[in-house]
Every structure is written in structure tokens, then in C-alpha cells.
């Protein structure tokens, strides 16, 4: 049942426990308890709203920064990652395989703000060997959601 609940909430976090119960043909109380348990266990770690900031008047700058670091003895990459994730500007940080170590997702009010963050804060951390900043020009699909305006239902209305 957990996976089914998660798949529904992943698609629409606004569904109430009652609605999830109807959709899955389960008991509402059982579903509510399961959701609570998953929240407690941090399987569900939050409820976010998907926003297409492109449609808002205030500009935002998103960037992906590839970072190479020198891992530290005993704690590997984890200690450095922890340093980096403390910054509120950092939306996400992943340890990667391949030609660099961390992929960091940043959002700032402007490209300049992002650039200054990289130059003044990120690059100056001891273990960081190099950074390479790529700005996002347009988001087409994010978290499985296509960001363009939804297409019209082109089916015949009665068939």
C-alpha cells in the first residue's frame, strides 16, 4: 500500500488521506496512519508546490554547478557536502560519478547573485578544487511535469 500512496502523493501532494483512501479502495484511517508513519520515518520528507517561475514577473536564475573536490580522510565527501548544503541558496546537492564530484543546484534572484555566491562562498571552501557554472535558460520539464501550458483535450467530445 505504501508505494501506491506515495505514487499518488508524488503526483499530487494536495490529496487528502480520505481522497487517497477512495482512490485506492482502502480504509481512510489506515491510509492516514500510513501517511503519518511515513512522515515520521522521513520517507515523506516534505510537501512542495511545483512552480513555474518563468510565468512570474520576478526573474530567477537557476544554475547547475559542477564541483570537483578533494575528499577528506575518514569522512570522504560527506563532510564537504554538509558544509555546502548549509547555504540556503543551495537547492540540491548530489554526489556524482564521472568527471566531477558534486552537482549543485542553485537558485538566485539573478545570474549575478548566483555568480557571486560561487565566487565568494563556494570556491573559497578549502576542499573545493574547481567549479563550473551552467545557467538554466529554460525549464521544459521538471520533476516529471512538463512546464509548457497544458495541451487541450483534442478528442471528440462524444464518441
Amino acid at each position: 500500500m505504501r508505494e501506491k500512496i506515495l505514487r499518488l502523493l508524488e503526483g499530487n501532494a494536495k490529496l487528502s488521506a480520505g481522497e487517497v483512501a477512495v482512490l485506492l479502495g482502502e480504509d481512510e484511517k489506515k491510509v492516514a496512519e500510513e501517511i503519518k508513519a511515513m512522515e515520521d520515518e522521513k520517507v515523506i520528507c516534505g510537501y512542495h508546490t511545483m512552480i513555474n517561475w518563468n510565468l512570474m514577473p520576478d526573474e530567477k536564475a537557476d544554475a547547475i554547478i559542477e564541483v570537483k573536490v578533494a575528499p577528506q580522510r575518514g569522512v570522504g565527501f560527506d563532510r564537504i557536502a554538509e558544509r555546502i548544503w548549509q547555504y540556503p541558496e543551495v537547492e540540491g546537492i548530489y554526489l556524482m560519478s564521472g568527471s566531477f564530484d558534486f552537482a549543485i543546484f542553485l537558485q538566485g534572484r539573478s545570474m549575478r547573485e548566483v555568480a557571486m555566491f560561487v565566487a565568494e562562498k563556494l570556491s573559497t571552501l578549502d576542499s573545493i578544487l574547481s567549479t563550473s557554472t551552467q545557467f538554466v535558460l529554460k525549464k521544459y520539464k521538471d520533476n516529471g511535469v512538463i512546464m509548457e501550458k497544458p495541451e487541450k483535450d483534442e478528442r471528440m467530445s462524444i464518441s
Partner: protein
Amino acid sequence: MRNPLSKTIESIPPSGIRKFFDVVNEIEGAVSLGVGEPDFDTPWHVRDEGIYSLEKGRTFYTSNSGLKELREEICRFTLRKYNCSYTVPETLVTVGGSEAIDVALRAMLDPGDEVIIPEPCYVSYKPCVILAGGTPVIIDLKEENRFRLTQEELLSAITDRTKILLLSFPNNPTGAIMEREDLEKIARICIEKDIFVISDEIYSELTYGKERHVSIASLPGMKERTIVINGFSKAFAMTGWRLGYAMGPVEIIKQMTKIHQFAIMCAPTTGQFAAVEALRNGDEDIELMRESYDQRRRYLLDAFGKMELPCFEPEGAFYMFPSIKRFNMSSDEFAERLLKAEKLAVVPGSAFGTSGEGFLRISYAYSLDSLKEAMERLGRFIGSL
């Protein structure tokens, strides 16, 4: 000038669905729960295979019966899913299930032969029987039997001239299914009375009970007297590709192929290549769509319950068939008033046969958000009556 038209075609009324379609189209901003096709796009890997076949220049005719590769995959699919063992010569690829029904009837009927059609059912059966020179004999299915065909109903419709029973389960418009025990009773009668069955199983992948679809052809003694009709429209969300198939005894399929050859030549090639991919790698797609339909089905049942709209629990296809008898109006009138008052389009049950009178066909091939909006409108309308 002489009348250019045949008396037969003039005697056939236009589809009841079509009539309502014209009304809906005139109303701006109408929300429709009237479609009979999936709201999903054809899975991308299937579309991609179609595109690839065009890139490779596979724009030729296929053999009349369809690509051998496709027919082999259809045989594997049918064995895997329904435990029915067919061979390539027993399989004909057609332009949708619709063509398969027409061709099967034309291959099997002589003037005066009777075809038993349980209603409510899809709108094409009766006209196709008439066009093939047969005589339709209607059985009015009942809600108290959950719109399943009973042996008593079948027995009372059989005459010396009965040749074919046309079954369609899971059913459009009721969402009813026939389980193994139901089919066994029907099969026994068909064998005893020497009646053939055309079984339209186009919704076979969309069932929601504990047991999955059972094909009547899989029952002992039935394969040799059954033509199974199926296709890609509902299972793989491929309605617009127009691709279906028929499976049955070689001597019937052979004659059907003859008609198909003279009338159609072969089913569209691009779709046939795409369909091979669908059958090989589409099981997961089917499951995802099925689960989604099932959730919406439960949502609508719950919503109907809240607005006290009685509805038997449908276990197949993607339709609900609630009863509106307590409102003392015809289903036509209900649908028209609903459309006018709330701009919500549903199909009157009477479009699917006289036994559909007093019911509505409500499709749940829509997103949950659309269904929520529609249920608000329906609830408001019922509250106002």
C-alpha cells in the same frame, strides 16, 4: 432521378451517440464525460517505433492478413494473457476492432440468419448485422443481473434461425463483465444449440475485479465456434491508429480475409510496426493505465454514493452506468437538461439500446481534476431537481 440510396441503409437510423455529439458541440465551454477512448497518449516507445518505421521507408502494403511478425506477437499475447492458443493463419489484422466485427458478420451470415445481440451495447453491432443481411435479435440485459447475460435470457432468444451470439464484455456502455462461471453457462448453450459466438473483447485488458478477463474462446469446445475480436485502441491507448484483429477457426478467418482484401487491402503499415512494439514491451504501460482507471472508477463510485445516484459497480472498461430512474425523466431529457444547466455532457443510456433507457453512460477516461469538476456540476444539478 431515381433514389440513389439502398433501402437497407436508409432504414438504419444514425448513431444515437452522433446525435448527441452535435448538440454538445454547439455549447461553448462544455465539459464532456462522453468520450469512448483513453485520455492517455500512446506510450512513447510505441509511437517512436511507428516513426522509425516511416524513417526506414516502410511505407509499403503488408500482406492482406497483416505482418507475420505482428500476428505472431498477437498469438503470444493472447496465449500469455487469456490462455488461448492461436496460430498465425488463425489471426487477421484489421482496421480497428470495428472492421473485424463487420467482416466477421459478412463472412458468416446469409439472409435471414439471426444474430443475438445483448443490449445495451456498442452502437455498431445492430447496423453491421443488418448490412450483412442478418436479422438482429435483441436481448435486454438487466441491471439486477449487473448487466450480465444469463442462460435464461439467451435461451428465450434462440430460434431455429439463430446463427451467432454477439458478446461484448467488458461492456461499453455498462462496464459489466462476464466471469468464468457466467461464460461457462453461455458456452454450454452455444455448443448444445450449435451457435457461433463473435466475442468483442476490445476492453479485455481493463478489468478491475480479483480475476482478470476470461475469453469465452478459452472454454472447452468454444474455440472452434468463436471469433474473438480485439485490438490496440483501449489496451495501448491507440484509438487513432485504427488497428485491431480477429482470431478464429481458419476456415472463417480465410473468408474474412477475402472480404478484408477486397475492401481494405491491408491495415495501415505504420500502425502494424508500432503494434509489434506495443505487444513486446507494453505490459507495464497497460498496468499503469489500468491502475489509473481503477482509481478514477473508485472515485466516481464514491462521488455517486455521496450524491445518492445509484450505480452498480462496473468491473471493466472505463464507463459507469448510473441509474437516473428516480428522477422521472428519460435519459435523453436528463442529459439535455444537464448539458444546458451545468454544461456537462454525458451520453444518454438509450443511445445503446432501449434497455439503456433510465441510465447514463459516464466515461472516466479523464484526469482526476476533470472528474472532480464534473462531479461538482453533476451534484449541483441533481441537487436542483
